[in-house]
């Protein structure tokens, strides 16, 4: 397989996690501009675990995702009690705070005569687990997609579950959801924790693919994009955000002839879709229509 293609596909896979993470919050009616914070937290935490503490990859990734989920819950407890715009602003502020903390965060140990670990704004080099263990780019890509498939399965189960309907009820009308006896704040905090976990998986994968993370890549544009993926692809199914990622990373960013115009085209796409399909390409109505079609064909 062509190296460039493997790189692009791996990128699509990793960014899909953060897109799904923002999508989960859109489902419960919250707009977060800060999912990149949880992506970053896990990138650092899992990198520290494998490169500095000598952990294996999978425990390291699980640890990173768990730290990200815990951070998300801690952010959610004070902010989700307030309604509306405040949550969005708080997530944005938190993400910038995380980025600035990583700008000054120094924690290094000596391994084989070399200093390893986060070094403030110079970033965190030598997260070399993948290379030291001879995992090829294609194998790593398959690992990314295996995890993505597992997370997608979890989303589909969620959408069919009681928890999934609770999330949708809260997203459509939180006050009416409260009147049905739902503790809206508790479920929103749960959703944020789950979203942190999903973003964290992506962040851990990212750190080990690039072997190098620096604070500035976790800026607000990553968060805005991950939010936009769900809005472009559609909020009716978890496939929606993946379509958004595929359009942006797979098409606009990766085809060299048009990558210079990426931001223009992407911004225009968001604007057009918000006007004509405010809940994305695969919105609830489209998903219902497809479901009915499939059912009729089977019947």
């Amino acid at each position, binding site marked *: 397989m062509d190296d460039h293609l493997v790189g692009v596909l791996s990128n699509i896979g990793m960014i899909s996690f953060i897109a799904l993470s923002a999508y989960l919050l859109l489902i419960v009616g919250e707009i977060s501009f800060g999912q990149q914070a949880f992506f970053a937290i896990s990138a650092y935490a899992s990198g520290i675990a494998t490169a500095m503490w000598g952990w294996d990859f999978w425990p390291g990734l699980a640890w990173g995702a768990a730290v990200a989920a815990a951070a998300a819950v801690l952010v959610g407890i004070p902010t989700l009690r307030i309604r509306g715009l405040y949550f969005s602003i708080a997530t944005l502020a938190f993400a910038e705070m995380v980025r600035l903390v990583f700008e000054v965060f120094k924690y290094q140990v000596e391994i084989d005569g070399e200093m390893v670990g986060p070094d403030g704004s110079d970033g965190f080099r030598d997260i070399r687990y993948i290379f030291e263990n001879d995992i090829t780019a294609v194998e790593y890509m398959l690992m990314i997609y295996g995890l993505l498939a597992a997370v997608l399965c979890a989303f589909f189960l969620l959408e069919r579950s*009681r928890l999934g*309907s*609770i999330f*949708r*009820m809260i997203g*459509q*009308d939180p*006050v*009416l*959801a*409260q*009147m*049905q*006896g*739902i*503790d*809206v704040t508790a479920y929103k905090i749960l959703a944020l924790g789950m979203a942190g976990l999903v973003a964290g998986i992506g962040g851990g994968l990212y750190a080990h693919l690039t072997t190098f993370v620096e604070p500035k890549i976790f800026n607000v544009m990553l968060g805005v994009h991950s939010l936009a993926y769900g809005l472009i692809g559609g909020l009716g199914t978890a496939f929606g955000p993946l379509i958004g990622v595929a359009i942006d990373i797979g098409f606009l960013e990766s085809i060299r002839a048009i990558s210079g115009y990426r931001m223009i085209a992407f911004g225009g796409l968001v604007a057009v879709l918000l006007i004509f399909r405010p809940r994305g390409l695969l919105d*609830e*109505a489209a998903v*219902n229509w497809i479901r009915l079609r499939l059912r009729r064909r089977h019947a």
Partner: protein
Amino acid sequence: MLEVRGIVTSYGKIEALRGVDLSVEEGRITCLLGPNGAGKTTLMMTIAGILNPSRGSIGFDGVELVGLTPSRVVRQGIALVPENRLVFPDMNVRENLLAGAFLRLAGERAEVDRDLDRMFDRFPRLRERAEQNAGTLSGGEQQMLAVARALMARPRLLLMDEPSLGLAPLMVEEIFRIIRDLHRDGTSIFLVEQNAHMALQVAHRFFLLEQGRVTFDGTPGELAEDEVIQRAYLGSRANG
């Protein structure tokens, strides 16, 4: 069954309820009438726990409701059919009904399914539209769905906020027929209405709420219907 005592609820500095006292008896239809802005919806939202009163108490079979979250109030056995906020528009009719039984779904799924069937029997139109998104229903159908959803919680007390608002006359008749049916089946109902004429026909007891205070408390017939209607639409000041 429900004892409201000295309830004061404010929006910022404006007191919408200025010390409301009233009571709802078990197995009865109790009606709250009053002009726009009298505080009727505010009172309903306060009972349901969505608004917090600054003073007063609300007892429900001896349990104090003030300070409870809305979900705790629902757990006590009170269901609200809200005004203008009837359904989850992007969920289908069946999902909306199941939403009403949210607290019961975990433990008594079989019974919930039986209740679902019962609701479809009572409201055949909802059965026809079971898979349709609730947002596409007509206003009257949405109102029916909202009532049916509230009943799915098996409430001991049903609060209804202006169920006839904005409905065609035939639909209004239908809604009041449903209210009578529910009462016959033993449901206690606390009803907020603007349609005084219809409300006086079903109510066992009614209260007039004017400018945040209860100004009349009695049975239909104790006050001439003309006067009730005038005060329910315009308030007492219109008299002088």
